[in-house]
């Protein structure tokens, strides 16, 4: 406990503040990052050096050599309290920027008011030089150059979707990696090279270049670890404090052994994992990657415990140290991406619980210790995803509720009863489905498999409805951007509205996927990932880089949908107000919305009074079900470049707020730019009036099997999770599971506290709230987003 307190005073929060979109004036002055955070140019500098030397070689080799150059030469350090080492920059206050992806936005950033403190003048000058090299070579440049015609028109953000760059996920095959060590893997690659030397396959050169690049990166990772071993040994030699000397010697021993060899102890396994995790970020700047922590590392702890090498307290301490590592991993995103990742550092998520391949519960002592680490550390990352199934021990759930009770917003709960059947529907074999994990907010992962997906983008469904009410033409500019659907004046029923909306969904999903599929070809060609390919199953065996083939399932390609509730409530309002009650003809309603309800507050009120999703009222819920099921069916008709269906996903981050700004007024009574419901299954804030059970009943009407992995967020007052009420809350969760709702997470904080925190941020520096699929420091959020969180319905109890 003491350690947690000490650590909490030492770590540096790298979370970005979302001051880019939806900010209020006073937010701007707070800067994009906390003042102590600096931009570290090391990765950019070293990558550039390497790239200058490898001009003309195959891209996979160039990227392997660049990564190796970074790992061989980046500045390393060991802090006084550390037992786990490894850092993404040369300084604990550093964040880095992926220059290979994009240089324009970082240049803009360091020259803007929000980011000028990130660099000094000399560094700014150096950055200019680095950027000059990447001009025309960064992925962003290549996209801009390649996207012409329709692609050029539809890749830019206009408000209907935000095509996302970079975010590539997947979970390595940690089971095999830890069992065998990297030396074994290198040996495997060498054998494969010998084999192709004998068989000379048609793609011999491509295979050979790929396999050589894998050897380069794996050796570099081993060398990286050895550098820490040498540094620790040197530091130990001159260290007087016996405690610290012991720690340094331990680091030296650990880093000299792993990751080349399989770990022998819990600490070694943890350090092994962390090096892999860290190098993934250094190879490719992404968000939201994770591990099944208890399942993978629990057995190492249990073995140590049995053999008397470790105590529970020590394991807790090691986890707390890992938590600091997670928290301090931060990088710079583009300003637009920042707008949807307000309050985020890098969205790492660890999965706990669930089952093994045979369906046996995997929870172990480490499950509890990890929950305790979360409770004591109270950091925004890593977020914990807890898999719940019928054999999840009551004690695990009870411990999880105690963590939720503290208000940090996690663990968020995933329902195996809903998700495993969904994965099977997506052609994931049963055994592999049972081993699923979670990353990002609610991304589904099949650990160890080549799921090299990118999140395609954020898709504003409510804007599709708006296009449907305007025949795909922007009434302000006259631009025909969406599909030319029928004139709303001809609509005879709400089904006609739904059909026109679905046509717009089809139109924009097609455009979005064209951009995405083209871009992926570009990434396959110019941004291969030899390291990631080396740590998932199948790439070495095939001699193929991870982007040249995929795990055969539609688990891959998803579009994060936003505003589904608003679409449903809007169509319900149209049914009620226009077609059932005939209060106003549809064209007139559209006209009034185009004026943002000005002068017609009465009609807005009538629309607000129409039934709303989330009250267990079939009038609204049945339309919501139709909207969800049919939207997904339409999205699935569009395919990725391997022929698998696109699909939805509930990971909306704070985009439900950040992107809502660009959707005009909607018939549910929402104003121009007003926030959307904050998750795919959530009612519109303030519109659920019948309490949490009614919300769950509404959610249960939407079939997970006909849709996708949703997100549902509810807000409870702390007193409902403690004392006499705790068993009631646990029974509530049991009913949630039985209703096969795929996900739930809770914001546990009372309104009074939030308002107080808004007024006195200095007193509430570490108040954490759940934003969407992630937790953030409340003080880092923009005033508007804070207001939005305050306004969310507190589940009112008698």
């Amino acid at each position, binding site marked *: 406990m003491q350690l947690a307190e000490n650590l909490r005073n030492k770590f540096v929060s790298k979370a970005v503040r979302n001051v880019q979109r939806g900010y209020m004036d006073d937010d701007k002055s707070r800067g994009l990052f906390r003042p102590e955070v600096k931009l570290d140019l090391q990765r950019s500098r070293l990558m550039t050096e390497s790239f200058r030397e490898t001009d003309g070689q195959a891209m996979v080799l160039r990227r392997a050599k660049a990564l190796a150059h970074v790992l061989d030469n980046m500045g390393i350090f060991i802090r006084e309290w550390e037992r786990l080492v490894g850092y993404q920059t040369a300084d604990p206050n550093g964040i880095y920027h992926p220059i290979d992806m994009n240089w324009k936005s970082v240049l803009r950033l360091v020259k803007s008011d929000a980011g000028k403190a990130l660099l000094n003048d000399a560094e700014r000058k150096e950055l200019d030089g680095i950027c000059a090299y990447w001009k025309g070579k960064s992925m962003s440049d290549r996209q801009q150059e390649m996207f012409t015609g329709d692609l050029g028109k539809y890749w830019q953000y206009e408000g209907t979707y935000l095509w996302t760059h970079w975010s590539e996920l997947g979970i390595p095959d940690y089971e095999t990696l830890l069992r065998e060590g990297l030396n074994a893997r290198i040996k495997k690659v060498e054998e494969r090279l010998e084999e192709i030397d004998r068989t000379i396959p048609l793609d011999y050169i491509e295979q050979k270049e790929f396999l050589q690049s894998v050897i380069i990166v794996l050796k570099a990772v081993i060398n990286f670890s050895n550098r820490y071993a040498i540094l620790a040994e040197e530091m130990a030699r001159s260290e007087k404090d016996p405690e610290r000397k012991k720690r340094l010697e331990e680091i030296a021993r650990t880093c000299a052994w792993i990751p080349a060899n399989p770990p022998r102890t819990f600490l070694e396994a943890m350090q092994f994992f962390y090096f892999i995790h860290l190098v993934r970020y250094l190879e490719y700047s992404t968000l939201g990657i994770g591990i099944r922590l208890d399942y993978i590392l629990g057995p190492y702890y249990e073995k140590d415990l049995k053999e008397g090498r470790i105590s529970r307290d020590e394991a807790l301490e090691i986890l707390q140290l890992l938590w600091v590592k997670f928290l301090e991993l931060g990088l710079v995103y583009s300003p637009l991406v920042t707008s949807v990742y307000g309050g985020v550092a890098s969205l790492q998520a660890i999965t706990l619980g669930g089952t093994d391949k045979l369906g046996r519960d995997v929870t172990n002592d480490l499950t509890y210790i990890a929950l305790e680490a979360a409770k004591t550390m109270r950091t925004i990352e890593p977020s914990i995803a807890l898999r719940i199934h019928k054999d999840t021990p009551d004690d695990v759930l009870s411990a999880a509720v105690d963590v939720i009770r503290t208000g940090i917003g996690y663990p968020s709960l995933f329902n195996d009863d809903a998700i495993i059947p969904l994965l099977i529907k997506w052609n994931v074999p049963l055994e592999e489905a049972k081993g699923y994990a979670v990353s990002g907010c609610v991304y589904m992962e099949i650990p160890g498999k080549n799921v090299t997906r990118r999140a395609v983008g954020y898709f504003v469904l409510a804007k599709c409805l708006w296009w449907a009410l305007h025949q795909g033409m922007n009434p302000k500019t006259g631009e025909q951007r969406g599909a030319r659907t029928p004139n709303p004046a001809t609509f005879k029923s709400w089904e006609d509205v739904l059909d026109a909306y679905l046509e717009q969904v089809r139109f924009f999903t097609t455009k979005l996927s064209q951009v995405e599929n083209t871009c992926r070809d570009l990434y396959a060609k110019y941004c291969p990932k030899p390291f990631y390919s080396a740590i998932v199953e199948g790439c070495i065996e095939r001699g193929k880089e991870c982007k040249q083939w995929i795990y055969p399932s539609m688990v891959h390609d998803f579009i994060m949908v936003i505003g589904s509730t608003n679409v449903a409530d809007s169509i319900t309002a149209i049914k009620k107000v226009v077609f059932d009650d005939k209060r106003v003809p549809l064209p007139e309603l559209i006209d009034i919305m185009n004026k943002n309800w000005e002068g017609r*507050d*009465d009609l807005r*009120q*009538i629309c607000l*009074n129409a039934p709303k999703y989330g009250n*267990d009222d079939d009038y609204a819920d049945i339309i919501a079900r139709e909207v969800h099921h049919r939207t997904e069916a339409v999205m699935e008709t569009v395919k990725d470049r391997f022929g698998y269906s696109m699909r939805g996903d509930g990971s909306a981050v704070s985009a439900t707020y950040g992107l809502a700004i660009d959707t005009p007024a909607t018939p549910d009574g929402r104003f121009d730019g007003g926030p959307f419901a904050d998750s795919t299954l959530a009612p519109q804030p303030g519109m659920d009036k*019948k*309490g*949490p*059970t*009614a919300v769950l*009943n509404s959610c249960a009407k939407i079939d997970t099997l006909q849709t996708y992995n949703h997100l549902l967020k509810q807000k409870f007052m702390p007193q*409902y999770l403690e004392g*006499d*009420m705790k*068993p*009631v809350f646990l*029974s*509530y969760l*049991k*009913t949630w599971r*039985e*209703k096969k709702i795929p996900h739930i997470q809770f914001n546990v904080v009372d309104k009074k506290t939030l308002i107080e925190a808004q007024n006195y941020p200095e007193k509430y520096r570490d108040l954490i709230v759940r934003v969407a699929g992630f937790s953030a420091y409340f003080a880092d959020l923009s005033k508007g987003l804070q207001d939005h969180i305050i306004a969310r319905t507190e*589940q009112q*109890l*008698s």
Partner: protein
Amino acid sequence: MRKRKSKNTKKGLVFNVQRFSIHDGPGIRTTVFMKGCPMKCLWCSNPESQDFFQNLIVRNLNCKGCGACVSVCPQGAIKMSDRKGRQIDWGKCNQCLICADVCIYNSLNVCGMYVDIKDVLDEVMRDMDFYKNSGGGVTISGGEALLQAEFVAAVIAACKKMEIHTVLDTTGYAPWAKMKAVLKFVDLVLFDLKHLDCVQHRKATSVGNELILENMNRTAKERRIWLRMPVISGFNDSEQDIQKIAILGKSLNVIKISLLPYHEGGKTKCEQMGKVYPLRRVKVPTDEHMQRLKELIEGEGVICTIGS
């Protein structure tokens, strides 16, 4: 749609159906609040439950000043002025409720709905899964539910048939025959008690407590009781008062005694209905005092909770 008064006597007058109710009996429950009460407790926190007819509730905050109500009121009881906003002359208002029908801003609302047994059951059945897992069920509360004993009996009989756990929350102020008819289908009784002294009781509630105490004794022979008592400073919160309650609770073998500290929740509601809130300058009991009373009851060997 608002359900307006009908001649059908099979309908019940309900003023709220509260789902995820977790203080009115065990587990997750749905509480059906029946409208109408024979008692007039000074501290009543649900004054909208007292009248055995529908009445108008005004929420001025929601008013946008559209004036629709002014023009429809047949009594000319509503006035709109720039300075004071909307004013209702409660002396003129005859609760015809026409104004509430035209108000789209939820500023004028009708309290009370005439509903069928089926309407209540439809709502109650929606949370069956939650009852099953939490050991919850349905609670019939009020007002005084026994004022509509026939309707209530029919509702809970139907609930019992579906194996839903049933709770009756009552003041006990009703003819025993009616109470007995209802108790047949009730698993647990939340019995409210205000004061053991009859004179004091009459002073504060408008009725004596003889019938209540008699019914309580009779009920205890048939069903387990959970005793609930509002704690009103200066009225029933002396250690002596509480001691007596504890002894009574023990003799009746109650499950527990809940002490409900006085709060001013009824005040705003009175204003919203044009009624005068009868209590003035009554203090909310302190946490320390509540704790002392709780310990006193526990000293008699009876379980005691504060708040629920």
